[in-house]
């Protein structure tokens, strides 16, 4: 059989955006004029921005989302191909330095509607209760101004909303179960389970991942093709592009794509009055707004606010504390690779499908604070070749040889908590991007606790692969995720925003994305970012009239607005409804 029964797959030309094979939306959205004073202007329609845009529009507000990248059509723009997916990432210049410089681009930064959620691997664990009290419990890092229990209802809601597939009983942190059942396990997950079990390390398989194990609304289930971080054409892996943006448009939000914000305007000094941005042709525009929410993630959010320095805010907007751009964190993301005698074919199944949080919490006997997780990863050939270059020093015939053994290798990821340090930071560099906007300069250096944790963690993961029967085990040092750099806190002297993401300095300027995190745990940040966004949206909706008009701060917690969740969240056929 050379061709499928019904001929080669092709799309219809009906002028609509395709978001996964079952969802087609018209992008003839409501358009605001620049003279309109919209209620909310959101900078960045990614993990947080997508949820915010949907919630605020559904609550009836006038919302404009500015997104630097394009509004994707998953069928026409995305490919099942590593090299062809380069455009999903934030590839604009950033300068990276310090003793342990971070990589950006495909490693951690998205561009386009959906942002980083388009290319996340979609591991969606919650943070543990201890993550919110790191300073109190361990005397390092910082405490969050909120507790796990403030966020818990939003975790529960988002787990059904995006939704998350995983085991019926997840034993770590605050134990819980998942609405969709676990995924079948691939070769990498099988070996993780085998190795952990031999060593008496707790392990769970099949999630938690924001990938559908059964169909949900107009999104089909996973087909296990392994291209999660190249953008899920299937629509099974959640991105806010497919889970929240369609409803945002339906309720009248405008998403202005290819719009690069470069300054938050403070023309009356006390309050933000809008956002300056460039369109794709480099023309300058200004969108007036009653409230500005910056959701650009841990590099672009501080960059925008630092570039928005103006009289009265000379150090950058919302930076009277001097902490804007500081306490940037990445997680230790060492990849540990083992070669097995029998084939594994690790490109099948989602890269993210089994994990252990057995070493998550502080254990004083290890000699360092906090811990790490162990997770499956499934590098495709190009990523694997680069790992072999680093981990084995491979090149030439050695590269050709080890690559011929690609199907025999398996890869696990360490996900280790690196603590927030003031000298790990985002500043403004000398150079400028294509629009003439000064670029971000990032400095990153590991500290003693971080180094000890990584050393211990990577040895542990190597042990797991040896125990699983590997003939050879090597590792590559790297980092995953970016958070911090505009942290929330109770004290305006040492943080950028309050517990709602509202900047201490400007009453109608909010930040909502991973840059709010005071610490990061060793859980992937995606679910927490989206949960925080839903919580911030509830606060904004409850207190909108006051926020629009005055600088007063009402800290009364808002009710949780379950009815604002996307329509398929509670619909018929959603399994394991327990709330």
């Amino acid at each position, binding site marked *: 059989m*050379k*061709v*499928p029964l019904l001929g*080669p*797959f*092709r*799309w219809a030309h009906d002028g609509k955006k395709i978001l996964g094979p079952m969802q087609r939306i018209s992008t003839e959205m409501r358009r605001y004029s620049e003279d309109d004073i919209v209620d909310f202007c959101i900078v960045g329609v990614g993990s947080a921005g997508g949820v915010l845009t949907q919630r605020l529009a559904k609550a009836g507000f006038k919302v404009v989302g500015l997104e630097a990248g394009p509004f994707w059509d998953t*069928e026409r723009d995305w*490919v*099942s*191909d590593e090299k062809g997916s*380069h455009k999903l990432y934030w*590839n604009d*210049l*950033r*300068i*990276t*330095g310090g003793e*342990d*410089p971070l*990589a*950006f*681009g*495909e*490693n951690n*930064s998205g561009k386009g509607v959906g942002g980083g959620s388009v290319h996340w*691997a979609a*591991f969606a664990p919650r943070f543990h209760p201890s993550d919110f009290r790191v300073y109190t419990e361990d005397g390092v890092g910082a405490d969050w101004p909120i507790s796990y229990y403030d966020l818990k209802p939003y975790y529960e809601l988002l787990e059904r909303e995006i939704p998350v597939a995983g085991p019926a009983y997840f034993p770590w942190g605050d134990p819980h179960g998942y609405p969709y059942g676990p995924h*079948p396990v*691939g*070769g990498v997950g*099988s070996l993780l389970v085998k190795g952990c079990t031999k060593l008496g390390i707790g392990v769970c398989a099949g999630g938690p991942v924001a990938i559908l194990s059964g169909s949900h609304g107009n999104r089909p289930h996973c*087909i*296990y*093709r392994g*291209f999660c971080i190249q953008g899920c054409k299937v629509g099974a892996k959640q991105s806010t592009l497919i889970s929240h943006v369609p409803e945002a448009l339906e309720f009248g939000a405008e998403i202005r794509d290819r719009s690069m914000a470069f300054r938050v305007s403070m023309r009356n000094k006390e309050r933000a009055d809008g956002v300056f941005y460039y369109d794709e042709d480099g023309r300058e525009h200004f969108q007036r707004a009653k409230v500005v929410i910056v959701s650009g993630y841990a590099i672009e959010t501080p960059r925008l606010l630092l570039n928005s320095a103006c009289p009265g805010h000379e150090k950058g907007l919302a930076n009277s504390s001097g902490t804007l751009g500081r306490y940037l964190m990445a997680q230790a*993301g060492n990849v540990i690779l083992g070669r097995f005698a*029998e084939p594994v074919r690790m490109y*099948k199944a989602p890269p*993210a499908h089994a994990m252990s949080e057995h070493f998550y919490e502080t254990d004083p006997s290890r000699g360092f604070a906090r811990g790490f997780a162990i997770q499956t990863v499934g590098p495709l*050939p*190009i990523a694997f*070749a*680069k*790992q072999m*270059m680093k*981990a084995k*020093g491979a*090149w*030439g*015939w*050695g590269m*050709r*040889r*080890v*690559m*011929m053994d690609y199907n025999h290798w398996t890869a696990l*990821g360490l996900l280790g908590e690196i603590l927030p340090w003031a000298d790990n930071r985002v500043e403004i560099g000398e150079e400028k991007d294509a629009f003439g906007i000064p670029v971000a*300069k990032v400095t990153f250096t590991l500290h003693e606790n971080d180094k000890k944790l990584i050393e211990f963690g990577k040895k542990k993961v190597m042990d797991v692969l040896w125990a699983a029967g590997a003939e050879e085990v090597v590792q590559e040092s*790297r980092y995953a995720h970016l958070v911090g750099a505009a942290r929330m806190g109770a004290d305006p002297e040492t943080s950028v925003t309050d517990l709602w993401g509202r900047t201490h300095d400007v009453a109608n300027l909010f930040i909502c994305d991973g840059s709010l995190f005071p610490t990061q745990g060793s859980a992937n940040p995606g679910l927490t970012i989206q949960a925080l966004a839903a919580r911030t949206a509830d606060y904004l909706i409850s207190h909108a009239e006051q926020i629009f008009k005055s600088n007063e701060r009402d800290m009364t917690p808002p009710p949780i607005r379950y009815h604002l969740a996307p329509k398929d969240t509670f619909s018929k056929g959603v399994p394991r409804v327990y709330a």
Partner: protein
Amino acid sequence: MEGETKRENWIRDPKTGEPIPPRQQPGYYPGYSTLGQRAFWDAKTREVVEDRVYNIPPIRFFSDEELQIMTAVANRIIPQDDRLPEYRIPVVNAIDERLHKHEIDGYRFEDMPPDEEAYRLGLKAIDQTAHEIHGMAFADLDPLKQDFLLKTIHDGKKLAAHEIWDKLDVKRFWHMLVQDCVAAYYAHPWAWDEIGYGGPAYPRAYTRLEGGLPEPWEVDEQRYYWSAPLNSISDMYEPGDDPGTTSSQGGTH
């Protein structure tokens, strides 16, 4: 890509020492073809992969002189002497296209010049080192000498051309070079066939997830043993000290 390879550049049978002639498709998956499955791929993926195979971009960034050095370097970093000339993968053209289009990975190390400049400097330094040590151009050296010279860069050592190397970090340059070469080679469906990688699988899906089992349209592994040619030293592994971030990091988790 030059034509016929000399026998001394062929890989060998480790038992008999006999050279193994170049083939259309090296690797342990004879007869496997990802491109043969393209009717099952989505239209956009098919378009992108076919374009890569059938529309090889012209050289626009490298000068003639740089192209000669780059070609010689790429032939050592990703040697293809085990492939029939018409089945070699155009690595240099893909790198040239990236540099011509100023495509970067989203960042630059503070101690490195822009990628385009780093390439021009690095290639010049490689050639100048060949001239200073061997009295001839890098491209004219025999493969073994080329390998030894590249190995010093792999190790982060500067043998000569210090005034050029001082402008960039040797190890970071090496990593950029290797990763650009592998990114070009392993983006090609012929390389997928070589390593037995399934390739695009939307909308069809993979169904045999565990145990490393092939799909009905994949094939079982058939291993054979081979040694690198005697005139090469690249078939060994020396990771050296843990280099941390010296290079692009593929997103994994």
